[in-house]
């Protein structure tokens, strides 16, 4: 009987992970940023509400349906973002681009809806404690959305340059991971400021 040495085929080379790890660190940092802001908001709210004072000024009506639609748009954009990653991993350039474009359009629509809702409340920055806090924290969350959109756009450029397939999708995956976090950050902001009130 001939001695044969059986060797297993080498497994696939691990995907590059630097960008995902760095994005993960950035997500952790931004999460703490939102926690710092929202935590302070809740503490101030508690200090006002627990002795029996009002928190939201009289006459301020929070447009709940608009904020709900905005949140829904953002949640759906998570699906389209992941669709982009799925298509990119399979090398489907057209679907990747379509999915990213839809995600970005939804993000822009979200920003538009939030700004519209803020205008509808007819609150003025500098006119009160709640107003300043609402503007500051909503602004932070919107800034995260803008950064997320920008990140998606830049990684879309790289996909355009051919960065697709199992290995090449790593940058886009990192951008979508960040987008997932952005949606969670907005959800927390929306809940704390516009639902709990």
């Amino acid at each position, binding site marked *: 009987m001939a001695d044969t040495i059986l060797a297993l085929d080498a497994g696939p080379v*691990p995907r590059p992970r630097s960008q995902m790890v760095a994005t993960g660190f950035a997500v952790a*940092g931004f*999460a703490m940023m939102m*926690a*710092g802001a929202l*935590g302070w908001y*809740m503490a101030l*709210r508690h200090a006002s509400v*627990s002795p029996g004072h009002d928190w939201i000024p009289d006459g301020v009506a929070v447009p709940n349906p608009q904020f709900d639609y905005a949140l829904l748009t953002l949640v759906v954009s998570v699906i389209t973002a992941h669709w982009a990653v799925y298509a990119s991993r399979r090398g489907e350039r057209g679907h990747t681009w379509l999915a990213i474009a839809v995600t970005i359009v939804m993000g822009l629509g979200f920003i538009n809806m939030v700004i519209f809702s803020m205008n509808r409340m007819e609150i003025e920055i500098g006119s009160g404690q709640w107003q300043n806090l609402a503007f500051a924290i909503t602004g932070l969350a919107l800034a995260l959305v803008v950064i997320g959109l920008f990140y998606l756009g830049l990684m879309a450029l790289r996909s355009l340059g051919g960065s697709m397939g199992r290995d090449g999708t790593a940058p886009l995956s990192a951008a979508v991971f960040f987008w997932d976090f952005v949606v969670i950050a907005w959800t927390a902001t929306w809940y704390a400021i516009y639902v709990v009130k």
Partner: protein
Amino acid sequence: MVGIASRYFAGRVALAFVAAVLLGLSTGIDADGNVAMFGTIVLGTAAVSFALLAGLALSVGDGDSTDRERLHRHPATPAYWPAMSAIGLGVLMVGLVIDGALTILGVAILLVAAVEWTIHAWSDQLSSDAVANEAARDRLLAPFEIPLYGGLAIAVPVFLGSRVLLAVSRNGASWIAVAASTVVILFAFLLYMKPDLRKPIVATGLLLGGLAVIAGGIIGAVAGERDFEQHHEELHPVADEGEGDTEGESHESSLAAPVVIR
């Protein structure tokens, strides 16, 4: 194998979670059941963040990554975009406080730097040949860079120079223009006479000249324009429409005014 980093981060998750729960239960929940205290919310988020880092450390494993090999095959090439983005951020910071136009300028600088940086990073991955990568990058970006930077290279010195000339007196502006053009001619003459002049000297001369224009422009812009004489209408009565004979009278100066040849 669960590496030491994953275990360390997991330990932090446990501690932060326990601390958040203890703090929340003792002081941090209001009557409606909402988490009300700063410390509880931040500790809870910290637990989640540590869990994320633990997951990342676990997914990366220990020493099995190809990242360093990839970076070694495609080394990062030098670029000015990081410094440019820092300048953009600085301009944005000052603009948010001082002037909205600077804010827009800062954002524009950041946008351009970000796009350039991304394309630069993309081109580094194309091949191991830095020259070929740079050619690919130039092919993609040159149609945008040349008009943009060329336009800025003309517009910015012109704008800054105009601030200087508008800030000083009329005679002063003339003298500055004469002096500046003399310096340029002398420098050009020097380059012609000494073609072997060392590059650092030329670069230093250009840099100093550029800095002088920038500094002068900023100072001029801050100082503001000089007062201009206003030509009043009483000194130069306007001829009524329809009047033909204008002998002895002068017309209001205007580009649209009829030219009278006597």
